[in-house]
């Protein structure tokens, strides 16, 4: 099985706004302690699926989610990270990079080769190489003074 890694076929990724450009050219990497748990499906359209507000003041990034204010910092990655985006050409569930836990049917090793080899269709494209990340490692602080900013502006 061969999974090619390519450059993006279309250069459709919009650039980051000017004052975020030092974090990357088309994407940002935010590191959160824990993870973002989302229940339900975010509604499409403006104002739907809003998580919070990301602010970049000089060197200090902050993230406000509801009444929680997270203070972050910009960290240079020890090793640059390539951000790969998975592309599946035919709409079928293709295997990703096999993890060690995957079962290994060792018998008939050579017989399954033909099948194995045909498992194409998946590829990864290198969206960007990121060198910096924004880490939010502190505990969130409660904010009560400025309500209803995070909710997105409505016309």
């Amino acid at each position: 099985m061969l999974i090619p890694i390519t450059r993006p076929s279309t250069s459709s990724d919009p650039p980051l706004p000017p004052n975020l450009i030092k974090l990357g050219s088309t994407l940002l990497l935010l590191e959160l302690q824990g993870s973002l748990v989302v229940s339900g499906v975010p509604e499409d359209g403006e104002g739907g699926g809003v998580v919070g507000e990301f602010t970049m003041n000089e060197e200090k990034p902050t993230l406000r989610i509801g009444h929680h204010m997270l203070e972050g910092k910009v960290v240079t990655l020890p090793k640059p990270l390539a951000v790969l985006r998975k592309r599946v050409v035919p709409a079928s569930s293709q295997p990703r990079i096999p993890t060690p836990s995957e079962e290994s049917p060792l018998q008939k090793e050579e017989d399954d080769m033909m099948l194995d080899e045909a498992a194409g269709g998946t590829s990864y494209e290198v969206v960007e190489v990121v060198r910096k990340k924004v880490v939010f490692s502190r505990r969130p602080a409660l904010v009560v003074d400025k309500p209803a900013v995070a909710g997105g502006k409505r016309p």
Partner: protein
Amino acid sequence: MAQQNAYSLRLAASSEQQTYRLVELPPELLSIVESETSDLSLTIKGKQSDDAVLCSASSTYTLRAVLVSNAFLIVQPTPSNAEGGGENNTTLEIKGQVKDIIEVHKAVPKLDRLNGLMRGTEWNGEDEDMDDRSAKRRRYTYEQVSGVVQASRDELEEGLRDAHVLHVGGELRSLPPSQLSMILEAILTSMVARSFSPKHVRLAEFLDAMEDDHDLPRDVIRGVIAWYGDVSEERWRADMASLVREIGLGLLMDLRDNTMSEADFFNLWEKKVGDSFANEISMDLLEGYFLRPEPPSKTLIYFPHTALPTAPAARFADLFLARPRWRSEDLEPFLRGLPGGDGKTVRDALLVKFARRSEGENGTIWWSARANYT
């Protein structure tokens, strides 16, 4: 107006969410990814049951997913619409979440699978292909093999060459040593008989000659000569030394059943190679593949370094089993295949670690096993 520095952060619509992977890039890969070429020639290879490897054109890397307790969010700006507030209204979208980072480490290519795949694909002359039976046997194309053998293009190329694998009619066929020797001798005969100059063999003419003289198919010959020298569209610049060496190796292998002294071996080798190229013959070409006899015995021994273990301790154990003590210059060729064995400092360090040095009466330095528990 001041630059906007607060951005609304939202989840991308589920239809737009994608699977992302974060891959650590070692310096060599970074330079490939950052180069201007449009074709990265990076590929993830292996069967589903394998641990995946990443191959560049020339090297192989293992991939290991490391789970991290933090979540990484991939955030991209939404494409700005022409209408609406313009640049001041940029929102950031969370396109994906990643929970592990893939570490990349340089690795040795896993070529051993190649031997298994090539078993039963031996090319034994054209006639055999007419046989009905052979049609049922499993044969592989280069593409199939390259998808399963976890090695980069260059490493696979080298592995195929070391294993003497040919491209015949779109399939990979391994060439057994006996066939190879026969073909090489045929090549030499025709080169002499039709007075081709080794430095510039006209390819089309030469392939015709081989077909006429020895009934050997063109694609087989073309594949074989590419291992010895440099083949372009119209000519072959032959590397006679390596061709002569290969014949010598074939003869050495036969020593297992058919012992002879070094002088006899040399004569036989000369006879096989023929007068025109006899001056290429030198035992140095076969360095690392034979042992000179110890005084009581007179026969040359086939002792290929490629069959020795690659771990230093095991290799030294084998070497001292074959011979209780070694002269430095005799031992050296058998240490080259060890990791780092190309450098003299590494070899010396290994010697000091695994062998004991002693000096003979006339100043020769001998190496023997470090511990002797008898």
